[in-house]
């Protein structure tokens, strides 16, 4: 127990300031908080749906929860069910085998809902395109509000992408 406390103490605080893209982070962060307040109340719940990804996008989605990015500090947290979610973060080209599951997840998400397609696959089908096994872009299956490009998008790109999407709504 002592070791654990000592290590935690030594590690200290990891969260970093995000480098600004268009405006300073403070502005983006503030605007984001306001948008979340306007759209959803105090915080925003995100449900991820892997609709056929290679799992690279998922790994970076995990990374935004690590100590350096800690997405929860902006009032954004991942939840276990679409019924608890305000935002669907969808990855992968949509495999035909996941088409029905993705639609059902979308239908199960209460309105107002935001859908973000994360990664090149989700944006346009990526390397896999449209085929006998793949529907391609997420927007071919459910309405999409915004895309975040990258293969995979880095945690920073993902975080900034989410903030900008909210700001724009």
């Amino acid at each position, binding site marked *: 127990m002592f070791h654990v406390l000592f290590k935690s103490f030594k590690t200290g605080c990891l969260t970093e300031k995000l480098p600004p893209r268009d405006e300073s982070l403070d502005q983006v962060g503030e605007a984001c908080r306001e948008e979340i307040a306007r759209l959803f109340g105090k915080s925003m719940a995100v449900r991820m749906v892997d609709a056929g990804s290679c*799992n690279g996008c998922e790994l970076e989605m995990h990374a935004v*929860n690590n100590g350096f990015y800690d997405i929860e500090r902006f009032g954004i947290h991942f939840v276990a069910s679409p019924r608890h979610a305000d935002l669907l973060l969808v990855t992968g080209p949509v495999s035909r085998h996941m088409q029905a599951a993705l639609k059902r997840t979308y239908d199960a998400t209460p309105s107002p809902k935001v859908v973000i397609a994360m990664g090149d696959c989700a944006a346009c089908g990526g390397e896999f395109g449209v085929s*006998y096994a793949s529907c391609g872009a997420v927007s071919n299956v459910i309405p999409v509000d915004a895309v975040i490009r990258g293969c995979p998008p880095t945690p920073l790109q993902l975080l900034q992408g989410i903030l900008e999407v909210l700001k724009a709504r």
Partner: protein
Amino acid sequence: MTKSVHKGQLESPVVASLPTLLNEAGIPTTEMPAVKGAARALSIDSRFWAKAASVMAENYVRWSAVWGEHDSPNILIKAVFAARDGHVLLCTSVQETGGVLPSQTPFFPAANRPERTLQDMFGIRFSDHPDQRRWLRHLAWGEDQFPLRKEFPLAGTPQQETPPDCQYAFIPAEGEGLYEIPVGPVHAGIIEPGHFRFSAMGEDILNLEQHLGYVHKGIEKCAEGRDVQGLLRLAARVSGDSTVTHSWAACQACENAVGLKVPDRALVIRAILSERERIANHLGDIGACCNDVGFAFALVQFGRLRELWQRDNATVFGHRFMMDVVTAGGVTRDISPEHVALLQKSIVQLRKELKELIPMLCEYPSLQDRFRTTGILSPHVARTIGALGYVARASDECWDMRRDAPYAPYQNVTVAVPNCKEGDTAGRVRVRGEELFISLDLLDSFLSNMPSGKISADFHAPQTDCFGVGLVEGWRGETIAYVHLDSNGTVARYFPRDASWLNWPALEALIGGVIVPDFPLCNKSVNGSYSGHDV
């Protein structure tokens, strides 16, 4: 009875003795020198397909993979077996119409799902197969359509909407107090999709059945007709967490096919990429396993170490996962002396932190209380199902190609292979902890002995058909790629076999008696790739 007793890997014969073993059993073999990359390629008559498997099983040869290739009017079938010092390819052929092969599943349970997949994708049948249900096919294409046949177009003839696959015949749970829990394909966490059907009594899981295939996106078909560069972009995306592994295996297959020698410096850089991939995944998963029992401290600490490690990947190789760095003939990025220094420094730092953290986890009572005896895969079962990588090593099956059948540059270094006998979650986590230190040592040795010279050789596609196999020990375990390049230099067939094919059944085997709340922990401790399996 004695044959079913667990025997160590040393019981396996050497590759050189296999043709004799088969011949003595009355199975005539012909050498197939055209396929490059495996130690041996032997062709046999399809009538002997099952008998050959029985000879292999009796001699403690391990079953690894099977795939098909449409060569009208036949389907060519190739299976890989692992002997003590390398791999053997067994080849045969059946007719495309009404073709039937005797199943190898009765001798090797590991062949169960791959054979059912061949039925789904090629439309041949396996006789004496204990399970005639489809495996990879859901309802995206018809029962009489076979996507991996040549005449099947990549676009297929999809319906407007693919219906959900609700009729898969799970083994029913019947009896008083027994109930079923369906889970997935959309799971509760940040995780890939798949379906699990539990039958449970109270809190105890009696049985688990997996239904995978949800992320099947047609990678093998997609590869056909691409050039080698295009193939490699796909190979890098078979499973994102194993991008180096699958890229390397596919490159090896292409290079073996055309007989290209890769520069020594490129090979060492590939090994550096591969060990870095192993470390990143072990770091992430150890933290995640601890988090699954509520020990958030470890999640934070290991998440921190993984993040720092990935940032170094981005600095040195331009990508946090090092995607698309391994290329046909070599690698796309060299490591400058400054970057060597940077990597060496981060190794020292990581080793120091792990020396502090790993013993802490291994001794932390409330953590080990949950890990120990949870999800036991006995050595016997691990061997029977042919488990791979750390899953196998924690159950006393210590295959590791880097040591047993080394490919360049691993023949120049000593690879230690950790193992234990417990086969529980604690064992799997401990083995991965030990592998971290071993990989760090390997990285040290590679970085301080970097050969000079070029980082790639020109890859020229051949004027004739050529065939190659690539074999790489990824962080999940033995990984295989098969490539057939045709006379135009385009891909006629690509087959990747992720270690997950053999480790998903391990999860089914170790879950009996585990309580439902411990399932996520057991799942994470095995960590099969859905994408790598479903391709």
